[in-house]
């Protein structure tokens, strides 16, 4: 019943100009007011979400989408608990790239990272432009790889919040075990203290699970 705030590092991946940043902006500043100067940081944003009696604080790390910087991505998704892999529903190329990101994340990122596949710019289709990435194809990928999947529009805000909520619900709750609790607390600050009083049998039996 504790009211915990869980910090979740979420990284944004996707080809340049698919609208990564717009999605976050939409999510973070829910009212996209026209005359408001963007006062928040260029790429690092936070937003809180309440799920049940639990608060999740998303720390959102935007990344550069150009191909030339692709090799730098691990520095950004390092220790991320969630990732948003974004593509543009009107650009097949961006979907191919999204596939790559999904694969890379699953191979190299944190085990148990929650990945959401997001097809952005859904509003353009409603305006009559041709869809180039079939919804079914993306759904299939999501199903195969165990991803969350949404088609969103950062412009209208459609499905943006839903995406983040869905991620939030998949985040393992903090108070499920006290050990987890500690890890969340110390996640970013490397201040792990070794608890010598910890029951050795318990710890030993956990060993295979955490030695990756």
């Amino acid at each position, binding site marked *: *019943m*504790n*009211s*915990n705030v869980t910090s979740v590092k979420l990284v944004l991946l996707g080809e340049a*100009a698919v609208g*990564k*940043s717009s999605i976050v*902006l939409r999510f*973070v500043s829910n009212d996209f007011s026209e005359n408001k100067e963007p006062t*928040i*940081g*260029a*790429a*690092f944003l*936070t937003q*809180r*979400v*309440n*799920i*049940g*009696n639990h608060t999740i604080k998303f*720390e959102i*790390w935007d*990344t550069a989408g*150009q191909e030339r*910087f692709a*090799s730098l991505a*691990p*520095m*950004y998704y*390092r*220790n991320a608990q969630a990732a948003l892999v974004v593509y543009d529903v009107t650009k097949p190329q961006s979907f191919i790239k999204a596939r790559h990101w999904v694969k890379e994340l699953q191979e*190299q*990122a*944190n085990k148990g990272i929650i990945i959401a596949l997001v097809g952005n710019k859904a509003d353009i289709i409603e305006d009559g432009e041709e869809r180039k990435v079939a919804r079914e194809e993306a759904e299939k990928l999501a199903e195969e790889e165990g991803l969350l999947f949404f088609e969103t529009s950062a412009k209208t805000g459609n499905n943006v*919040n*839903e995406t983040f*909520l869905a991620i939030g*619900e998949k985040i393992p709750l903090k108070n499920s075990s006290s050990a987890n609790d500690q*890890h*969340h607390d*110390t*996640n*970013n*600050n*490397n*201040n792990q*203290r*070794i*608890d*010598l009083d910890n029951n*050795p049998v318990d*710890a*030993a039996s*956990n*060993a295979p*699970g*955490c*030695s*990756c």
Partner: protein
Amino acid sequence: MESKLAELQGEPIKDRVRTFHTPPITDSRFDGSQALKESYKAPDDSDSFDSNRSNDESSDANSTATLASPRKKASHEELEKRVGPIKELPVELSRQIDVFIIDLKQPKYLHPLTVIQLANLFQSFYSKFDKAAFQLLNNANNNINGNNSINNTPTHSGSLLSVSRETLSSGLSGIFARSRSGSINNNIRRQRRSSSLFGNDTNSNIVNNSVNGPSTMVTNNNNINSSMMATNMTMSLSNSSTQNSLPLLSPDEITTHLENNEIVGIKIDKYMELCERDIFQRILEVGTSVSSVPTMLNGKDDDFTNSRDNSNTSMRDFNESAIINNNTSNTNNSNSVTTGNYFDVTNLFRNSVDFLEYDQLMDRRIKCLNEIMDSDDKLRKFLDLPVDSIKFNKEIDSEIKDVLINFTQYSIPPFEKSKILLKLHEILKLTDSMSNDEFLSLLIYYLIKTKPKHIFLNIEFIKLFRYKKKLVENELYSLTNFIAALVYIESLTINDLSIEYQENLSDRQRKILKQTISSKIHLPNSIMNWNNSSTESPTMDIPKIIEHPVSNTSSSSTTANATNTTSTNNNNGNSSNRGTFELSLRGILGKMKSYTPPNTLSRSSSQMSLDIVNDTVPEENDDDIASDEAELEENGQNKSMEILPGARLVHSINDDEQIEGDETMTNSTTLNMSAIDDDRRFLNKDFDELNMKDLKEIFNIYKKIFHHPDQLITPNNIDGNNSITSNSSNSNNSSSNNSNESS
């Protein structure tokens, strides 16, 4: 909980969207208001949930808060104003820094510390300082609330809390923590924890204080009076005996609590910054060198008696005398380097040649790229930045240049440098769209354009010496951006340039760009080498600290050390590793035997020297080890106090921080259990499964354990060390094998 979950799942998504209520919070160090509200929420009463939520909305929007509750909660900024500018550290804290610096200057290391070892010392100190600051502020708070003058505080004995008290009260804290879930105090505690590492411990102390009241005054000068905080703690404590009734506070009181806590948080932040500032300022004064010839231990003790004697006189004096002491010893050994007033980060890296070389290559490479892209337009084109954009103008150019120069040359403490990075982000942001797509290019553009000197070392400096707990969120993000930019620059080769450039390169340029820097220099534990280790998750920056509890009973801390050492040796036990490992264990054990740390907290910084952690063991150290070993035998126990060069607690930098804690813990305990590795196989069996033969063997093990206890972990005699080390390294190997398999 169950019902809540069910409700949640049954709820249509649209409804849940309403629960977005929190405006962006850029500075999110303080979660107190959030936690508070949540606690008032009756778990299955949706009405109260709603009303609470509306409160939530307003109080969370700190900047625009119009709170319906009786008393308006001050915003973060207001509180910060109320705290006012803190320019000086309180005497106790300042003194901790002195002790730390003195300790650093002690010539107790046979080999110079690498920068990473040094950084680990710093990080341990930061944590301790954080804790001390928290305790100090809480005590001060209580004093103020109880109409006691804060002036009492400086006369405290310096060691804020003795270790024994901590352990005494920990039992209390156990009850305390368990019994309060759902009560208001729990949230307060939680928030504390967010502002300081040691929520639990310190709280327990407070409880202790408040319970014992007057009696503690005698022992610890904690003039506890009926401060609100203390009362609450007592209330909740009494609660724990009755077990159910929750103390309800008026919203007014809660607000006060939160504000107090937030103020404490702000103060601690400031103290931490001042701490970094002071440390580096004093290092600047005394220079970074340490005399190379070890002086005898009594020299060290003199310093400490000095400090004790002088505790009544002004700190300044003590400070100066200490520095003079050290300076004279330095000049005697003719090894001192005067840094003057100009702080040069390269000094810190002096013992880590790799870093210096890397930095040099980086500077050269940036300069070379700058020559090749001899006009801004070329550079922009190369980086795919729009060539004719209003984003580029002279004003911003020069501003950024100033900032970068300030960054590399004039700023000293890590937090200041980190702030400058954030500022640079601000400037770049103004010139750019919201996307990070162009941001990184822009950063690289300015790096090449302005060619800041020693940029690499400066970045590394922040990474290593900024208090890790505060290097989070946007600070970490901005740092990561910089690191990414540098990695990109370092990995550029000729092939990345377009043909026209390739043809016009001079031989020198060609040479510089022929291969990546990381292919030439492999930095230990560097940001730069995550690229190469693709099988593991990308290793980043931050060297881990194994923090030993400040326990002074030598046996327990020895065990701690031994287990830590082994547990951290995750590198695929090659021979050099094992050699080092054995040596290190022996060194530590020897040391532990003859060295009983003094009992004051102020000495703890010297204990930290045991925490030296090196991340990798370079292969070429084989020779070193041999000679070290000889040296070690010669020196025997006389010098066991010194940190032996071989005492590298090998620590594989596992970037998976979340898992790391577990892993270290488990490995260490595994080792503990499995000193006799072979005999472990019965551990997983049920008694019923055992046959007679097994039982016999178990009995043998049992006998072994009690007849030769020294073969297990106890370091009681040095002669036993060999068997210990070999045993434990064996088992360590097996445990690292295990981990390899499972990963």
